[in-house]
């Protein structure tokens, strides 16, 4: 289906167009948020939230970017919201008295990506752990470019940053990752 036609159909509220959109982008959106959040349940939930947001704001789509970029932008924003929720919850849990049960929210757990070959799982888990420790923007830029394989221009569009800014984020992310991965290796 041509993108312009799909957007028109979506803006007219056609359910078949929405179904087509969800089926086309479902896996891509899920994998993007999975790589950011590193939790399958949260990723599923966030991917759904992104599609709901998309449904309600399709009239705001200005066609100055592709539909795919716009969907990715919403998904990244939703994933960041989820990360902030986790952080806030973790902060609030710090105020609970010692005798109250504390959930293991936001604690660093090893993330084993379900699509990675068995022999690479440990190494990939270390990489994801190191990525998770990066500052927010570096994490998003690195995930979009190095993990998702998007171009610098696409990542810049999604993040609302210039290509130069994205390059700088990637450079700093690499430096931080190198230090951390070196520690894991030793």
């Amino acid at each position: 289906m041509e993108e312009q036609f799909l957007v028109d159909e979506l803006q007219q509220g056609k359910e078949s167009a929405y179904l087509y959109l969800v089926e086309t982008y479902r896996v891509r959106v899920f994998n993007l948020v999975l790589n950011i959040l590193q939790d399958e349940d949260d990723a599923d939930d966030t991917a759904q939230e992104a599609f709901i947001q998309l449904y309600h704001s399709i009239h705001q789509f200005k066609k100055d970017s592709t539909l795919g970029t716009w969907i990715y932008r919403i998904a990244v924003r939703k994933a960041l919201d989820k990360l902030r929720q986790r952080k806030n919850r973790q902060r609030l849990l710090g105020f609970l008295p010692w005798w109250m049960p504390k959930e293991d929210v936001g604690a660093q757990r090893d993330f084993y990506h379900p699509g990675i070959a068995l022999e690479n799982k440990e190494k990939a888990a270390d990489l994801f752990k190191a990525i998770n420790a990066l500052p927010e923007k570096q994490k998003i830029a690195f995930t979009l470019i190095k993990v998702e394989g998007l171009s610098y221009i696409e990542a810049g569009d999604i993040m609302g940053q210039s290509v130069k800014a994205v390059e700088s984020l990637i450079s700093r992310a690499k430096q931080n990752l190198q230090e951390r991965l070196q520690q894991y290796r030793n």
Partner: protein
Amino acid sequence: MKNDIKISITDDYLKSLAGATPAETKGFFYERLRVRMKAAETKEEWLFQSSPALIVGALSIMLVLNMALFFRYPEKDKSDIQVTLKDFAAAYDQTLYSNY
């Protein structure tokens, strides 16, 4: 040179992602999404319809309670205080006059 070695470590770890297959969402993604959207719409409708009724109801209850308290307790409170002061004076043998 040292930096080159470090870069190769990151690249080495990145190689572990090569050939990774995309993860699949849980089953019935679209159906679950539609149910969720429907539930949100129903909830919104319910809130919109019932909230004026809830607000009016809550305000009415508060008004009735306020009126009941206003008409019932003021006099009783005053007499209670007087009795309490008299009792206090009597208990400690205090009077309102003085020998001096």
